């Protein structure tokens, strides 16, 4: 039913696809964290106009599937004159989707810091900038860590739809090999194993960080 030699011969092909998926996935994740941080600051400081734009962006991307976003970016935008390669499209799509999730996560992290912390900082003579950098940010970050890890895992799973814009990722490779040689079982086993390699470590690291960062919750 299962042929080890087929698995061995498929291994390098899957390894290559795995590398591509991981690289594009993580660049997208870094981008999403950057977008999320900027947008969360905009919402937290209630910057006029920008806050409305950010809120629209967050609602728009949280309420649509990545597949539809990628189709729009990859097949739709070229008709309007914006052309991106599949790789760039994957990064941008994942970054925009993830950015909207990260914004919500980081904003609610910032808002968990109680008012008393700010008042105490002011009474100790902290400036506004010091208050934000030394008091609010560290606490907000440690509160948001579990939710950010959950978002990262979600985004890594979402990379599976990259194959729809003909990026040669793990799904694309599996589907291609199944179509070519009909070794369905072997291809699917490798697909599952490589996804486990991609996501399980993040899940473990996430649990470990969560346990450690619990010690850093002050107040209350």
């Amino acid at each position, binding site marked *: *039913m299962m042929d080890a030699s087929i698995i061995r011969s498929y291994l390098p092909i899957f390894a290559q696809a795995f590398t591509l998926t991981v690289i594009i996935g993580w660049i997208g994740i870094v981008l999403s964290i950057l977008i999320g941080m900027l947008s969360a600051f905009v919402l937290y400081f209630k910057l006029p106009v920008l806050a409305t734009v950010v809120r629209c962006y967050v*609602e*728009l991307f*949280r*309420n*649509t*599937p990545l*597949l*539809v*976003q990628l*189709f*729009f970016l990859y*097949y*739709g*935008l*070229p*008709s*309007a004159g914006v052309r991106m390669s599949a790789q760039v499209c994957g990064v941008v799509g994942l970054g925009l989707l993830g950015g909207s999730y990260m914004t919500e996560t980081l904003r609610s992290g910032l808002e968990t810091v109680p008012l008393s912390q700010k008042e105490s900082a002011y009474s100790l003579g902290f400036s506004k900038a010091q208050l934000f950098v030394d008091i609010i940010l560290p606490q907000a970050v440690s509160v948001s860590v579990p939710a950010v890890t959950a978002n990262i*895992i979600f985004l890594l*799973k*979402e*990379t*599976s*739809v990259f*194959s*729809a814009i003909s990026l040669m990722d793990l*799904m694309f490779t*599996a*589907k291609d090999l*199944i179509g070519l040689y009909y070794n*369905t*079982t072997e291809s*699917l086993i490798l*697909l*599952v194993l490589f*996804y*486990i390699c991609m*996501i*399980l470590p993040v*899940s473990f690291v996430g649990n470990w960080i969560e346990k450690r960062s619990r010690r850093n919750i002050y107040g209350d």
Partner: protein
Amino acid sequence: MGFEVLLKGKNMIRLLMGLGVALKLSILSVVISILAGLVTGMLASFKKSVFYIVFRVHLEIVRIMPQLVLLFIVYFGFSKAAGWNLTAEAAAILVFSFWGTAEMADLVRSALVSIPASQYESSRSLGFNSLQTYLYVILPQVGRRLVPLSINLITRMIKTTSLVMMIGIVEVLKTGQQIIEANRYQSPNAAFGVFAVIFLLYFAACYPVSRLSKYLEKKWEN
């Protein structure tokens, strides 16, 4: 920009019917997930039982494997390995219900576990029997936590069912592609308009539901 293509003939209606296919699959899967999740979640709330272990394994599988991978395993793998020739629709409903059940069960379980023991003890001391305790004290509180979160599961389900085009179901994205192909010569730039409209259609389907979930969550806070 390609919007005019959708006004031609029955194109817009076809697109909406494509969305209907996706929504039908998500509603079916949501109903199955909620019913199965309620039962599994209640069983899993008994700590250190077999149910809890089975539930944990189920949840871990769903948390680690992308839904598309599960879809491929069921649609392509089962037919080869087990000889099950599932239709794409059946495979989709099976996978999304498998995923949704685990998520729903987790919501039910954590809502049940979050009710403090003092609530059970107080009802006991007020002379409620177990049935009354559940009906009048526990379930109303669990319901308040559960309803917004399960409504949120509906939007996630709607978004996830867009994946079914990857196993060949003709839904809204596929219909969009067909419309673009059919009008290739008259309007070569139709892709922008068609995919923008699909984007907005999904938004229109999910946004009200996620607003409702947020509204109920705020209303029933504390």
